[in-house]
């Protein structure tokens, strides 16, 4: 049915530029300036999708971002594809390809459509009630539901578009470029205030810009001509920035707003190449003026969802703005006067209006008289009881309304139509206001929610503030702005406006039919297929809170957040439950106002910029030597260095053996380092760590354990006394930032009297650890001037020295149990020192090892790793580290908690070693440990925290936490796995060299 429904002469459409696009594979033409919706309507296409649950055919309903039905997939099967795009928003461009979504296999033949006939058994909560049981069937259901429901398809390839983030600071932000927004922007900018005006449409002017009615005059011009001049003028204002195609996604507290600025979605593939597609604007405004307008309400009646049924205001916009007739036989259905404006507009464009069905008993306004004079038949006190036509409306049936509006009477008449415009009054767009934390007030007279309490410096003007008549909009806008901007006069003080409107409205939330409710389909939420029936069912089943009804019926939970139907849902609940709307309240509107793509949210933070990472000074060497890397905190750490095709296991076994049998070298630069100075430094450490620090000699190192006040292990590391009032503390790699923050917290808030200064010096130094029986020989080659004797440099001591005149510190500390030297040197010398040591160690087969081998070696010695073997529920006593707790110390952080009734229990989880009966069996970290496999439910005693195959002991070893494990030495326990149970024995956690002989080998 190729037809051209374009009327002539819209100045908003460039009829000289024809644009070719594809919809569902077919080629169509539109004009530059068309949205996909207006171009489709001009081609007489209404059917664009299927509804979510019943798969009913659905058509274009609106002309704006509130569209619930006409959501399409753009550029399917390409990396640029995007689902859930509203056809009413996307502007057509050469080569645009759009497809219907939520229909399979096609929009004209849709398998899910069978749900429509099954709908008596698909009531509210059906999915919850049915598919949850039996649980094992869920996977099966899910496949079919996803296949046939699915709201669009996500792209299969990385998004090739460019996005960015931008911060904007302004004095005044005006949201919405309708008549009141434009006036506000001008008044603000003219007063020297840095002003930003945003509008989601490609042009500003709102609905006034195409309002040519003789009833609306400003300074003797039609309101549209007057506004055109205003727009020309504000375009010249220096203090004013206007951003179109920019929609506010979120309005947060303190006037912080997020907006999406759409830069290229309206351009052809060629034009948009290499350009930023969208910007996420982070706007901080001193004052916000919300002028978001209002949304027309549909009417809720039987079968009110057929393609061809649209909002009356949309019919008007398509005619007046796009020059498109939505139908050839139009009928309007209304509860107020705005449909009469539409009728006149359509008539002026030569678009036929067959009738107006008005549920009011009478309307004697000028408008209605004019409409009657044109010859349009008006059916007063009547309602549409049913509609006909499957893929496009063909006919409606109309009956008389009873006086109370709850039933119908009289004879049923039929009226043919191919388009039905419905007008149910207006809902102020208060979404952003409520997002910002604003409180609403229900206005009984107009049956609308209005802004009442503003949580920040903001104000609402125009129809989003409840003014629907031009004179009221302008006069109230001026009054409000004077107060809000603290000014005495405006540019518009002598304005002459005429534009009253008959606001008389008959509000019936659910219109009756001649059929009983159970046999009708009056849709409230089009996108999620929630009907008035579903809402009433929810109430019958006991749901009372509006938030619960919303979730149960899914009303308002679509991508449109129920912008059209929320008020009807509230109204039907209020009527049915016999409560007042004001008592019921409304559901929360959450950001984003319209969907945001992930690309916009992440901006430039993609790929390597997604999360920053830190590299050690020796990183290049690790890369060159084919190290595998592991992420530790923000660091990239060498994990293991495979030789050729070695597996991780093989590499780690080789590295571990080399470190114990000859020499290993580890990059330990990532360990946190905090420089601590001040006359109270040792006292400070004494309060931080569980052990005593006051008597540590200069030049000596000590291992310390740090607790939280709750007694649980927080971090550990070696701290060295460089001088009387100077220490250097090392922390775990991941814990460095938190430890520094904790130290600062105590110093600033609890002990400000202490004379202590902290500096983070983690990346000032490269740290190289050389260990193994040959480590001493290697270090003596690298630093020949340093006396490495036990007397001069015993275990747990340090010396300042030089290598080739470069200062460095050498510490005798060991995390492997081997004799070890840790050399700290200024970071930029790290790589040359590393290479020098490798060269000197060649004759001893010095082997670089990574974190995995380090973990294995320390596990052989039973040394814990905070965060792997501990999880903030273990005290030092639980870890069998009683030796490090200074019992004689008066106080330290966490001390008091170590003898709370809970922490002294015998049956706490405690650290133990585990040996498997089969020495080749390596346990899985995280595996659960049980004593009795037969008792159900099986009682978990603990879990494996570290597990390795030790090449030095030739057996599997593991650390674990086990309830009461300390007193279970020698006991056999079980580790149930998927196909077997592994038998383990509890042992001491130190597996190798209990006497610490190797430290001084």
């Amino acid at each position, binding site marked *: 049915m190729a037809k051209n429904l374009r009327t002539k002469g819209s100045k908003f459409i460039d009829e000289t530029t024809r644009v070719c696009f594809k919809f569902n594979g077919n080629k169509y033409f539109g004009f530059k300036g068309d949205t996909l919706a207006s171009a489709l309507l001009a081609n007489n296409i209404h059917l664009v999708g299927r509804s979510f649950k019943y798969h009913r055919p659905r058509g274009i309903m609106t002309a704006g971002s509130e569209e619930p039905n006409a959501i399409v997939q753009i550029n399917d099967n390409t990396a640029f594809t995007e689902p859930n795009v509203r056809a009413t928003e996307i502007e057509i461009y050469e080569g645009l390809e759009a497809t219907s979504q939520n229909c399979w296999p096609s929009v004209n033949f849709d398998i899910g459509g069978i749900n429509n006939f099954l709908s008596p058994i698909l009531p509210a909560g059906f999915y919850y009630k049915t598919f949850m049981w039996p649980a094992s069937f869920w996977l099966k259901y899910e496949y079919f539901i996803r296949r046939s429901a699915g709201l669009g398809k996500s792209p299969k390839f990385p998004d090739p578009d460019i996005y960015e983030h931008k911060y904007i600071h302004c004095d005044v932000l005006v949201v919405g470029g309708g008549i009141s927004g434009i006036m506000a922007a001008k008044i603000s900018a003219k007063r020297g205030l840095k002003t930003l005006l945003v509008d989601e449409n490609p042009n500003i002017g709102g609905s006034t810009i195409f309002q040519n009615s003789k009833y609306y005059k400003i300074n003797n011009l039609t309101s549209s001509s007057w506004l055109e001049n205003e727009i020309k003028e504000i375009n010249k204002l220096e203090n004013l920035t206007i951003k179109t195609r920019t929609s506010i996604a979120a309005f947060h507290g*303190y006037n912080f707003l997020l907006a999406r600025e759409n830069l290229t979605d309206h351009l052809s593939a060629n034009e948009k190449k290499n350009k930023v597609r969208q910007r996420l604007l982070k706007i901080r405004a001193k004052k916000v003026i919300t002028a978001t307008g209002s949304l027309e309400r549909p009417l809720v009646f039987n079968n009110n969802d057929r393609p061809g049924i649209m909002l009356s205001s949309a019919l008007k916009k398509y005619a007046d703005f796009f020059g498109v007739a939505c139908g050839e036989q139009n009928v309007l259905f209304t509860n107020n006067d705005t449909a009469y404006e539409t009728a006149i507009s359509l008539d002026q464009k030569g678009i036929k209006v067959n009738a107006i069905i008005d549920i009011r008993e009478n309307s004697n306004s000028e408008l209605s008289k004019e409409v009657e004079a044109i010859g349009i038949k008006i059916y007063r006190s009547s309602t549409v009881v049913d509609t006909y036509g499957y893929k496009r409306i063909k006919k409606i049936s109309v009956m008389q309304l009873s006086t109370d509006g709850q039933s119908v009477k009289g004879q049923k008449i039929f009226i043919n139509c191919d388009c039905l415009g419905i007008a149910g009054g207006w809902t102020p767009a208060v979404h952003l206001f409520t997002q910002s934390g604003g409180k609403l007030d229900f206005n009984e007279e107009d049956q609308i929610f209005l802004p009442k309490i503003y949580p920040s410096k903001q104000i609402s003007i125009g129809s989003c503030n409840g003014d629907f008549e031009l004179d009221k909009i302008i006069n109230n806008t001026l009054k409000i702005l004077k107060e809000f901007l603290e000014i005495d006069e405006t540019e518009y003080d002598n304005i002459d406006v005429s534009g009253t409107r008959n606001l008389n409205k008959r509000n019936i939330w659910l219109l009756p039919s001649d059929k009983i409710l159970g046999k009708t389909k009056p849709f409230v939420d089009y996108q999620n297929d929630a009907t008035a029936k579903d809402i009433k069912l929810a109430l019958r089943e006991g749901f009372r809170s509006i938030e619960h009804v919303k979730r149960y019926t899914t009303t308002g939970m679509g991508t449109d957040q129920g912008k059209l139907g929320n008020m009807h849902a509230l109204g039907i609940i209020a009527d049915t439950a016999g409560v007042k709307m004001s008592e019921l309240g409304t559901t929360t509107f959450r950001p984003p106002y319209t969907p945001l793509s992930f690309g916009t949210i992440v901006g430039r933070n993609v790929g390597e910029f997604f999360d920053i990472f830190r590299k050690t000074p020796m990183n290049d060497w690790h890369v060159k030597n084919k190290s595998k890397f592991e992420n530790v905190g923000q660091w990239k750490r060498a994990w293991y260095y495979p030789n050729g095709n070695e597996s991780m296991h093989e590499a780690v076994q080789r590295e571990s053996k080399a470190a114990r049998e000859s020499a290993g070298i580890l990059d330990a630069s990532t360990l946190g380092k905090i420089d601590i100075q001040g006359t109270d430094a040792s006292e400070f450490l004494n309060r931080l760590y569980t052990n005593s620090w006051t008597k540590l000699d200069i030049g000596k190192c000590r291992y310390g354990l740090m607790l939280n006040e709750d007694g649980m292990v927080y971090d550990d590391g070696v701290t060295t006394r460089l001088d009387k009032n100077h220490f250097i503390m090392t922390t775990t790699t991941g814990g460095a930032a938190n430890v520094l923050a904790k130290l600062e917290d105590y110093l600033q*808030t609890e002990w400000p009297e202490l004379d202590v200064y902290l500096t983070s010096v983690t990346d000032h130094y490269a740290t190289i650890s050389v260990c193994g029986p040959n480590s001493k020989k290697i270090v003596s080659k690298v630093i020949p001037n340093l006396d490495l004797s036990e007397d001069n440099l015993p275990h747990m001591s340090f010396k300042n020295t030089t290598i080739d005149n470069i200062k460095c510190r050498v510490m005798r500390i060991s995390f492997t149990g081997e004799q070890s030297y840790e050399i700290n040197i200024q970071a930029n010398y790290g790589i040359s020192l590393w290479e020098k040591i490798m060269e000197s160690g060649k004759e001893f087969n010095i082997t670089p090892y990574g974190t995995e081998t380090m973990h294995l070696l320390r596990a052989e010695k039973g040394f814990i790793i905070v965060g792997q073997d501990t999880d903030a529920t273990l005290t030092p006593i639980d870890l069998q580290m009683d030796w490090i707790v200074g019992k004689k110390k008066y106080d330290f952080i966490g001390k008091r*908690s170590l003898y709370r009734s809970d922490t002294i229990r015998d049956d706490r989880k405690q650290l133990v070693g585990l040996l498997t009966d089969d020495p080749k069996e390596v346990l899985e970290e995280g595996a659960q440990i049980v004593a009795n496999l037969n008792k159900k439910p099986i009682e978990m005693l603990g879990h494996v925290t570290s597990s390795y195959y030790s090449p030095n002991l030739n057996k599997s070893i593991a650390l674990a936490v086990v309830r009461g494990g300390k007193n279970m030495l020698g006991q056999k326990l079980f580790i149930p796995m998927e196909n077997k149970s592994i038998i383990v024995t509890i042992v001491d956690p130190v597996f190798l060299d209990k006497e610490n002989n190797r430290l001084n080998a």
Partner: protein
Amino acid sequence: MFLINCPFCGEREQSEFKAGGEAHISRPKQPTELSDDEWAEYLFMRKNIKGIQFERWNHSHGCRKWFNIARDTSNDQIKAVYKMGQKPPVI
């Protein structure tokens, strides 16, 4: 996102700060003298009230100083900002 008026740097974005829980809970001078209940009171019990709450905040991505604020938790309005060691203002 709030704006917080750091007493050392001035007004900055909330993302520069870290919240540190309820203010004016001093670490007991002699923890060992306390009963389990008294220690638990210090360790675990927090008010979490709806209304004006006194809170510790740290300018962690700025001067790294700790300070206190009085915040209305029902609408996030910050009624006062004051330095550590100062008495809470009467609000």
